[in-house]
Each structure stands twice: as structure tokens, then as C-alpha cells.
């Protein structure tokens, strides 16, 4: 029925100048349903948490929770870019481990040495990511397989550098995470910076091209996009953010760990999916991912204040993930029915 109306609509003698652009609120809400559901979940979790624990609605709590979530947020930002491209990056686990062990073995009290190695880690992250992108394009392999392989390789290298947890970083590096400006700690400022970055990135040609390549690769190619270049950049950025996550993570742990990275692989995907990023590419926003990261982090807090075994945390995370996926698939169907 509605399809015929649309066709009839196209046949109407109306021309562009006659159209009054009405806003399709319901369509927009359906498009953003997964994101809205994520917001609702976060609100619910915060409400429960706040009713069980005093002092939840304070700046201190915001500072603490953001610091706890920031490593995941950084990793998930890279993952979001890759998902938007229609891929997946498992190697971030390896990159995070490698980043922490390099930092823990190379950072010294001398700021210039430390700065040099920090930049080296970031550059390494980008290069290894770019290599992922190149391999995916050249070998025409599944991103899942290529990044699974590089994850294993990076993990191994991290083990060779530092076989067990250890090493150290200067105290001023650790102090970075609690540095304050206007009552907000640096992680909160980083969160704002991430959103600002995203607002800018998504409006650039590069950002649009990455999204377009995930939405329909063939169409993007026919429009003149170099898919190889897109892959190099996409996975390069993911590696860069993973390296950034490693540098932040050691402000929390104060030491390197050759195995810690694996804890961020699936949560980074989960945070994005909870926030409404499509696994099939082309759709999603970082705001959703960041909310998803908060949801996953606060679940941990909630489990703690409920005084139940901490093993309930992954159970709860899994249930939330399922609910999000369900919500987005229901919304997807509703939206599709509207089009037809």
C-alpha cells in the first residue's frame, strides 16, 4: 500500500521547488532506536545504581566512572570506525598489550624519552593497523581472519618483550588520569575531545567515504573510492586508537601486561553494538558507542554494590547486548515495513 503511494508521489507533477520539507519524526526515531534504547538502559542503570549507593550524582562519580571507562572508550572509538567501514578489528587486543609492555619497559623519568616512546607507540599502532588494512585489501581476506592473525602475532611480541605483568611508568604519567581542570579530570576532557573529534571526522570527506564504503562497497568503488586506501586508513585509525587506549590504560595499572588487551576486544565491539552501530557497516555514531562503554562499565559497579559475585558482570553484559541487538532488529523491521 505505502509503496504504491510512494510511486504515485513520484508521479505527482510537483517539482523540487514545490516541496515543503516536512520532518519524518517517526522515521528518525526508528532510525535512532538502538541509540535511544542505549540511552534508556544507561539511565536505568544509573538510576538503580544511584538508589543503592550515595554520591552517585556527583562530579567525583563522573570523574571516576569516566576514568574507568576511558580505555574501553578509546578502543571502542577505533572499533566504531572499523565497524562503520563494515569490518571488525580483533588486533586491538594485541596492540593494547604491546603498547602497555613497551611503555612499561621504555618509559623513564626523563620526559623527552617518555614522549618519544609514547609517540612511537602511537605511530606503531597506526602502522600495524594500516598493515591490517593493506593485507585485507591485497589478499582479499576477511577482516576477522587477518586481524585475528595480527592479534596473535602482536600478543606474542608483547610476551617476548615482557613475559609477565610488570615494569613501571613514571608517577607523573600515572598522575595524568587524575589531573583536573575546572573540576573535571582529564578523562572527562578526553571524552569531550572524542565527541568533538567525531563531530568533525564524520563531516569530513574522509569520514563520509569510510561510512560509504561500509554502506555499499561496490557503489563506493563505482563512485571513484579507492577501497585499498580506505582500508589502510580505517584500520590505521583503529590501531592508533588502540595505542592510545594502551597509553591511557597504563595510567590506571601503572605497569605493563602482555595479556591485558584481550579484555577489550569483544567489549569494544559490544559497546558499539549496544550504542547502535551496525555490524554490517554504514550506520552508527560514536555517541552511541560511548554510552555503550558507560553501560558496560557501570554494570560492573552495579554488580559490586549489589554484593553478588563479580561473575554476574559478564552475564549481565551479555543480556544487555542481546536486548540491544533485539531492539535494533525490531526497529530495523519497523523501518523497513514503512518503506515498503
Amino acid at each position: 500500500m505505502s509503496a504504491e503511494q510512494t510511486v504515485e508521489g513520484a508521479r505527482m507533477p510537483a517539482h523540487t521547488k514545490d516541496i515543503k520539507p516536512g520532518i519524518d519524526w517517526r522515521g528518525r526515531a526508528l532510525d535512532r532506536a538502538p541509540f535511544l534504547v542505549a540511552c534508556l538502559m544507561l539511565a536505568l542503570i544509573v538510576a538503580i545504581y544511584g538508589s543503592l549507593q550515595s554520591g552517585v550524582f556527583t562530579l567525583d562519580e563522573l570523574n571516576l566512572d569516566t576514568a574507568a571507562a576511558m580505555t574501553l572508550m578509546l578502543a571502542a572509538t577505533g572499533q566504531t570506525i572499523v565497524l562503520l567501514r563494515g569490518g571488525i578489528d580483533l588486533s586491538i587486543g594485541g596492540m593494547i598489550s604491546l603498547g602497555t609492555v613497551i611503555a612499561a619497559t621504555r618509559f623513564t623519568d626523563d620526559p623527552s624519552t617518555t614522549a618519544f616512546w609514547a609517540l612511537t607507540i602511537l605511530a606503531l599502532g597506526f602502522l600495524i593497523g594500516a598493515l591490517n588494512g593493506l593485507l585485507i585489501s591485497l589478499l582479499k581476506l576477511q577482516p576477522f581472519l587477518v586481524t585475528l592473525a595480527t592479534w596473535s602475532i602482536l600478543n606474542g611480541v608483547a610476551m617476548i618483550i615482557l613475559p609477565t605483568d610488570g615494569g613501571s611508568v613514571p608517577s607523573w604519567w600515572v598522575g595524568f588520569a587524575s589531573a583536573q581542570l575546572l573540576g573535571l579530570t582529564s578523562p572527562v576532557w578526553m571524552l569531550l575531545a572524542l565527541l568533538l573529534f567525531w563531530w568533525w571526522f564524520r563531516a569530513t570527506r574522509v569520514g563520509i567515504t569510510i561510512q560509504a564504503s561500509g554502506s555499499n562497497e561496490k557503489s563506493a568503488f563505482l563512485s571513484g573510492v579507492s577501497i585499498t586506501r580506505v582500508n589502510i586508513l580505517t584500520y590505521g585509525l583503529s590501531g592508533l586508537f588502540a595505542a592510545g587506549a594502551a597509553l591511557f590504560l597504563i595510567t590506571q595499572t601503572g605497569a605493563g601486561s602482555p595479556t591485558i588487551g584481550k579484555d577489550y576486544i569483544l567489549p569494544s565491539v559490544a559497546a558499539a553494538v549496544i550504542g547502535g552501530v551496525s555490524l554490517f557497516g554504514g550506520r552508527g555514531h560514536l555517541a552511541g558507542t560511548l554510552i555503550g562503554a558507560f553501560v558496560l562499565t557501570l554494570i560492573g559497579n552495579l554488580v559490586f554494590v549489589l554484593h553478588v559475585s563479580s561473575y554476574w558482570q559478564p552475564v549481565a553484559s551479555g543480556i544487555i547486548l542481546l536486548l540491544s541487538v533485539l531492539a535494533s532488529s525490531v526497529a530495523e523491521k519497523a523501518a523497513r515495513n514503512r518503506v515498503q
Partner: protein
Amino acid sequence: MDLVTVNGLSKRYGGIVALSEAAFSARAGEVHALLGENGAGKSTFIQILSGAVRHDGGSILVDGQDYRPANPDAAQARGIAAVFQELSLIPDLSVEQNIWFRHEPRTLLGTVNRAEMRRRTLALLERYDFPALRPEQELRRLTLAERQIVEIAKGLAKDPRILILDEATSALPAREAEWLLKLTRQLAGEGRLVIFISHRMAEVRAIADRLTIFRNGSTVAAHEAKAVSDDEIVTQMIGRHLDRLYPERMPTMTDRIALKVGNLASGSRLSGVDFSLREGEVLGVGGLQGHGQRELFQALFGATKASGTIELWGKPAAIGNPRQALTGKDGIALVPEDRRGQGLLLTKSVRENLTLSVIKRFTENGLLSRQKEAALVKEMVDFLRIKAGTPEQLAGTLSGGNQQKVIFGKMLLTQARVLLLYDPTRGVDVGTKGEIFQLMRDLAAKGYAILFHSSDMPELVHVADRVLVMRNGRIAATLEGDHISEEEILRAAMLETRAA
């Protein structure tokens, strides 16, 4: 001077020659039509021109200078833009983002200047009097016709000197198709070259200054449009080739109706089809690609939702999904279009492929009888003369022709006696083609009823007892006896389409 001159252009895909010795020349300010049957090489030709595919041999001159675009970007840089039949649009971007994709106006920050983009969009749409479009609407919310219009806008946004329109009217309703023809003339009037591909003769007649005819990957002729008749064009498109590929056609049809279809409709591509297929008959389904043949077969097989009635051997049948369609002696079996994707499991053996969907036939008391299975497999391999080392050879290692025979075997083992063959000879070598035609006639003689679609017209002409010609989702003509000829099929499929 000619704007484009093409000589000896060739392109191979593996062993298949898509283009050989194609020639073409066209001037600025003209509408130049490209004509040819499906698979004549038109698509490859424009893919090369637009930079989507690189040619193997021959030369292209644009403005007298060598032209060999490495990608669509390079083609655009030389002023060539294509409006693809297989659209190049991004579903998750808005209409205007699609139109200006990769050419967006930008701010100092490097972000897209939305206000400027909106201004340019409206100016473009107004200049060429575009039908209604909402610049901010997401593309995936649009109908096929609206998308086609966006694709046209996208091509024009590059202000090209050469615009290629590949069957751009086929997705448009009458009013918009009319608009596009007017637009095409306007563009030529602005001094651009428009290369226009359409299967609708009336459209070509209405707007083309000149036309070039392709057949089997080569250029057959180029004409001033006014100096050539429809009949000459059709004859040149088909060419003349006689060979002994086809079996003798013996009438084996009985009066018993195997399949009766009433007012079958599905989506926008299939709008009310009636016909009956008799026992012992090979009924051809022809027409130009994309006029509902695929949808007809899918609807009959139950792969898509459809309305209407279907009777099998006099009994009403509700055919909901492929599994139901498969079962039983009164059922329907299909040789699908995409052999490697839908028909065969390439990493399974010939035996497994043959028996997978009929496993019940070899089970006794819930256990699989290997002997019974082996006997049936042997029978089928012998009957179809499948050239496999052993029945355990992997299907993926067989030649195209033998793979197709395995699919035939799989279909025959279902015991269904109404067979739907969708382009069964596509990608099959000539020798096996002959065997398949013979097999079809043999099956018909045994009382099978066969519905047969081929993208290759001579096959319909030489193998089918009757031919249904489809156009715009309906049956435009039913040809019988001496009336079955390529000319008649093309005429029914192409001419008078504008009246529809």
C-alpha cells in the same frame, strides 16, 4: 572532429571474451544510442569508458588524446560520467550527500559545507527540472525510480562532457521516463555527448541522432538514426547463425495441464501473469532481461511472496517456500539461476549434491541405506552422462557443464514432473548445451512439463514448443509454431513498450 573514437577494443574475463574488436565513434552534441542483445558487450564497453573496468587491447581516443582510465575517478577527471544500471549510490547517505559524494563543498575545517551543498543541490535540480526529490532524505528510504533519478543527478553534478545513460529509463515510470528523454535532448543541446543505452526502440527512435549496434562483443554497424529501419536494426542485433546445436522438435505435448497459473503477481516486477503448461511441453519464457522472468520463476518456486493461483496437475497448490515446492511427485523442481550459489555445494561430492534434498528416499526404518543411495546415484550419473571420476569427486572440481548436469540430476531425483529451468545453459560449453537440449526434449517425451527461460534467444526459438514473451511483468505475447522467431520475440519484447 569526433569527441570519442574507439578502435579494436577488447576485454576478456578469464576464458570468456566480453569484447573483441569493438569500434565506436561519437561527436559532441549528439545523442548516440548503443544497441545489442543481452551479453552483446554494451555493458563491458561502458564499464571501460567509465573507468570501472580496464580494457585488454585496442585504443580509445577522447579529444584525440589517448584515454585509459585507471578508475572511475580518472574517467571523471576527463569529463566522463556514467549513470549505472547497477546503481552507484550509498544507501546510508542522504540524497544530496549521494549527489555530491566525494565532491562536496567544504568549510575551512575540512567539513562538508551543508548550506552550500543544499544550495547547489537545489540549483542542479531546478536547472534540469528534476522530478520531486527531498535532498535530506536517506537514500534507502527511496523507491527504485527515485534512486534512478538521484543517480542521474549524481552524474550531472560532475558537469560531464560525456554522459553515459545505461538503461536509465527502465526503472522509471512513464512520466519520469518522458522527462529523462527531454533531459537527454537538453544535454545534447548544451554540447555534451550522451551515450544512451535502452532496449526500448521507441525511445531510441525518439531521441538518438546516431546508433551503434553490438553483437557478440563486436561492433556490427553504426548508422544515422534516420537512415535505418527497425527491422534492419533487429536483424543486425541478432545476426545470422545456424548450427546443429538443437535437437529435432517432436511434438510430445498432451492435453493434460500440468501447471496452470492465474494472475500471478509479486512486487513491482511481476504484475498478473496467466498461462498453462501442458504435460510433455517445453514452454519458453523470453523477453528482455529484467521484465519479470526471474520473479516469475521465483514466485512459482515459492522463493518470493506472490499472489494469484497455481494449479499443479489440476489441484490447487499453495507453494509457500522452496521445501514445500520440492516435495513429491506432484511437485515443482527448479534449476536456479546462480548455479554455484544456490544450486550446488561446491565443497561436497557429486553424490552428496545429488541426494541431499531427497535423503528420505534412501532411509529405511530411519537408517540411511547406502546401497539404495549408491544405486540411484549411479543411475543418475549414467543417465545424464556426468563426467566425474567417481561419485565422490567434489562438485567444485567439475566443469561448468557437468556441474549443471549434477543440478539436473538433483532436480530429477525429487521426482517432481514440473521442471523450472532458469537459464540452464548459461556458462555451459557448446557440447553440453546440445546434451542439455536433447535431455529437455527427452524429458518432455517422458511426460515432464518444462518451463524454460533462456537469456539466449535462439535457444528459445529452437527448443521450445511455445514461447511466452514477457514485458513489464506481464505476458506481452504467446508465440506458437511458425511464429516463434527471434524477430517476433524481440518485436514483442521491445516495440510499443511506450504504450504500456
